[in-house]
């Protein structure tokens, strides 16, 4: 258990020291979202129409930026061997990594998204659905990303490869996340959409670390 907490604390401390990594993810989110109002021109209705999709897609893309270094840094400097010798199953190491990743990437995006939504003229009633959807969805992104990152350890152009592996897996997340916001905007119940997101999260919490652990074992050999 101390090893599990130790991995999370070390990754958080590293993220704080290398603050540029988090800042870059957030800046990417901010810049890309701001491009849409500029590209679409002065039509608030069109913006409000595409706002849910823009927020979700950009959040997914921003998270992708950070996956290539999730295990690669440890693999390069020998830290992965030490993690493997922590006396913990590699699946739990992967889960700890995913939690640290969510705290440094998913959580900041979750906090920033409502602010960005104002810029996109999102309807006022849709904010709870946006926040609830991202709260359920961003941990799934971190968990799936851990699997992708573990699979590409040692690969060339790992960052692109992770995105190619992980983004298709996140399509259900995108569909339910966006439809929750649209349902809320239209005054329809959002419960079923959020429950689907919750179900995906409930499945990903035990399964994704197992897959990532198996991929890490492969990377060690």
């Amino acid at each position, binding site marked *: 258990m*101390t*090893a599990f*907490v*130790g*991995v999370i*604390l*070390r990754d958080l*401390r*590293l993220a704080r*020291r*290398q603050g540029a990594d988090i800042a870059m993810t957030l800046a990417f989110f901010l810049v890309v979202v701001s491009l849409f109002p500029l590209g679409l021109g002065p039509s608030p209705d069109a913006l409000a129409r595409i706002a849910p999709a823009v927020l979700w897609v950009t959040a997914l893309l921003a998270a992708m930026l950070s996956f290539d270094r999730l295990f690669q*840094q440890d693999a*390069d*400097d*020998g*830290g992965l*061997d*030490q*993690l*493997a*010798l*922590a*006396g*913990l*199953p590699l699946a739990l190491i992967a889960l700890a990594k995913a939690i640290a990743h969510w705290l440094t990437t998913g959580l900041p995006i979750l906090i920033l998204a409502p602010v960005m939504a104002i810029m996109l003229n999102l309807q006022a009633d849709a904010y709870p659905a946006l926040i609830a959807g991202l709260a359920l969805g961003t941990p799934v992104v971190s968990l799936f990303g851990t699997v992708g990152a573990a699979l590409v350890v040692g690969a060339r152009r790992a960052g692109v490869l992770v995105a190619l592996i992980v983004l298709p897996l996140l399509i259900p997340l995108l569909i339910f996340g966006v439809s929750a916001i649209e349902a809320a905007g239209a005054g329809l119940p959002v419960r079923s959409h959020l429950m689907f997101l919750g179900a995906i999260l409930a499945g990903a919490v035990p399964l994704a670390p197992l897959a990532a652990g198996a991929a890490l074992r492969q990377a*060690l*050999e």
Partner: protein
Amino acid sequence: MVDASTLIAEDLSVSRGGRPVFAGLSLRVDPGGALRLAGPNGGGKSTVLRVVAGLLRPGHGAMSWGDRPVADDWDAHARRLAYLGHADALKSALTARENAAAALAILGRPTDGLAAAFTALDLDRLADLPAGWLSAGQRRRVALARVLAADATLWLLDEPTVGLDAASVAALEAAIAAHRARGGMVIAATHIALDLGGGDATLDPAAFAGSATARGEEAWT
């Protein structure tokens, strides 16, 4: 340090990428004993260490600790060893002390021994500098301090003296002697005349490569 016991590995065979590295390799280390892995580059010294650490699972053969097979509980095996790879496993953004303390926390080991280990390797002056500022030899010493402080029974050292000056080599030899006097065990891969103390055996994995080739061919026909 808890359960010093005899480590025996019998008839280990490893192939990497379909190419046999060695076959039929056996080794034995008694409590308080030391084993030197020597031989040419590419001879399989690091591979032996990774197999003994449990990072690499051998294709054939078994290890036992006392009267129990190691394969019964790899996590327990990981908890009784300290592994120094050819990479130092240091994060450039963290200070030397933070690196060692975080690594020990992840390994689930107490950090009380850290101050003594830093003093033994003359690292007190460098403890609060970021690891990224240190020279190669200084980084090696920080990695060694982690091994010294890990309170492990079995030290697995892969070229521990790379980059070390004469004084540091002497400090390492003294630490190994003290470790063995307490019943600790050491397996070290090294080219130079590192003094492991009296009664150390020498093993050249390359001597088992010939039979590996023979076996590999046998397997193909």
